[in-house]
């Protein structure tokens, strides 16, 4: 039952264009952010002010997640909201009436897509970032095992965001609303809260637990920790990982137990 449902979910993805369009956006986003940091690195010996920004290889590679975690989030949310929007829950639940199986089959497909987006992001960040770093006279750190450990965490966290998207979409139902929530929260709401949080110590303690902050802390190297949050130290990486897992479990439980079980009429 589960294997059949998983195969069906995979076919749902590869019979539409969304997966590769999002992959392309992921590639371009990361190339843009890695390229920007790479250029800053190159310019830093001419413009002394830039040297204040601690740019290194890990910052560039880590920018994959802060720029790109919205991509698997959207991918996951589309996987569930498409079913409501195009009323395809009818044929889906006719073939697989045990709804929990359908929901749980969407998770591994989005985890795998998250890994795929992570690999694309790495290709862009390393492919563009490493040459720029070399040109600026910096280390690429590619021979350092801790860099590869960073890559693993990047891929893992993007996979997790795919699962969060599945739960969010299932819960919210409305596709437009889900997309707006995903974009507005990740691109505006959380960054603003984090910027404010950096100024007040008591807020910054709570801000650490926000999903984007936990993502950065899990990865351990990102534009945010490089640029903004001077005062805050962020969570331990493994605590941040647990916080993200807790978000995933919460949103998937709500999505699959509330909206997903409603009447399909």
């Amino acid at each position, binding site marked *: *039952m589960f294997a*059949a*449902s998983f*195969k*069906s979910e*995979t*076919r*749902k993805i590869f*019979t*539409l*264009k969304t997966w590769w369009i999002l992959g392309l956006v992921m590639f371009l986003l990361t190339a843009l952010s890695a390229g920007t940091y790479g250029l800053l690195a190159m310019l830093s010996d001419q413009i002394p002010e830039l040297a204040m920004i601690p740019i290194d290889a890990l910052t560039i590679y880590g920018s994959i997640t802060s720029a790109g975690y919205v991509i698997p989030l959207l991918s996951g949310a589309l996987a569930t909201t*498409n079913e409501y929007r*195009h*009323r*395809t*829950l*009818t*044929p*889906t*639940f*006719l*073939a*697989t*009436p*045990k709804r929990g199986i359908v929901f749980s089959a969407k998770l591994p497909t989005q985890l795998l897509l998250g890994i795929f987006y992570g690999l694309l992001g790495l290709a862009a960040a390393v492919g563009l970032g490493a040459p720029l770093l070399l040109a600026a006279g910096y280390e690429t750190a590619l021979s350092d095992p801790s860099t590869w450990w960073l890559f693993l965490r990047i891929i893992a966290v993007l996979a997790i965001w795919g699962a969060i998207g599945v739960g969010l979409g299932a819960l919210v139902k409305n596709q437009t609303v889900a997309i707006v929530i995903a974009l507005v929260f990740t691109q505006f709401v959380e960054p603003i809260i984090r910027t404010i949080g950096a100024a007040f110590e008591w807020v910054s303690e709570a801000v650490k637990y926000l999903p984007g902050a936990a993502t950065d802390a899990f990865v351990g190297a990102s534009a945010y920790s490089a640029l903004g949050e001077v005062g805050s130290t962020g969570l331990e990486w493994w605590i941040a990982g647990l916080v993200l897992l807790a978000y995933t479990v919460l949103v998937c439980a709500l999505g699959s137990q509330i909206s997903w079980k409603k*009447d*399909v*009429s």
Partner: protein
Amino acid sequence: MSKEVTLELQGVSKKFESTLAVNDLSFSVHPGKITGFLGPNGAGKTTTLRILLGLVSQDSGRALVNGQSYRELENPANLVGASLDSNSFHPARTGKDTLMVQTSAAGIPDARIAEVLNIVGLTEAANKKVGEYSLGMRQRLGLASAMLGDPQVLVLDEPINGLDPQGITWVREYLKHLASEGRTILVSSHVLSEVEQTVDSLVVINRGKLVYEGTVKNLRSQTKTSVFVSATESAKLEAALSASHKFIKREDGVVIEDVEPQEIGELALKNGIALTQLRTESTGLEKAFLELISNGGAE
């Protein structure tokens, strides 16, 4: 797996906010026959079918397929095929890809896809996006999807809706063919004349309640036909009729209720009246159906 699959509702009720869509409904559908599920728009047909197929949860009662609830069935697509909604396809997927999603979920070999597309006449449109399909083509795709598992039972919600006359004839013939193979078919419609020639049995509901369950023949015999008659000497005709019949005057003739044309013909002959027209005004079946669904008033 038993060949004799039945569908059964036992005291099913469902309320949406303030609307009681299905009201203590019980009926069963027997194998090897086509059962028409009729009722005016809003009578609760779609809701009932969705309850039967586990898509909508009833508030009370039981809905059974082969003695089990649909949600408990291990691989339902091989037992029950359903086409409920011609708008339940992703418009950017091709017809073939739409079926590929279904075969994988139900563990049906992909080779079956070409077969069902051929049966419903969509082979040439297989690689077109469903968004470019007409309503009739989407109805055919729904039927193709229902037939993927070669199921013993078919549940179809208004499958004729949106088809051209050719398509309507084709669906009727195809359903008859499927029933002749011993399959159980439940087909809904809000227009009796649409399915009258196709179905063996009728389940009629109005406002969520059962108002008739039985054969078409039985319902037909419940009322007589009314007859329209006109004559060159209309005054003489009316005089002859008034002794024995109640009639309604029209501009060009009269209508007599609950009578067979033969009786009026004989009466005219006896009185030496030359008739210009003598015909059945409305069939007894239609009248009986309208009576069933006007009791309690749908609107």
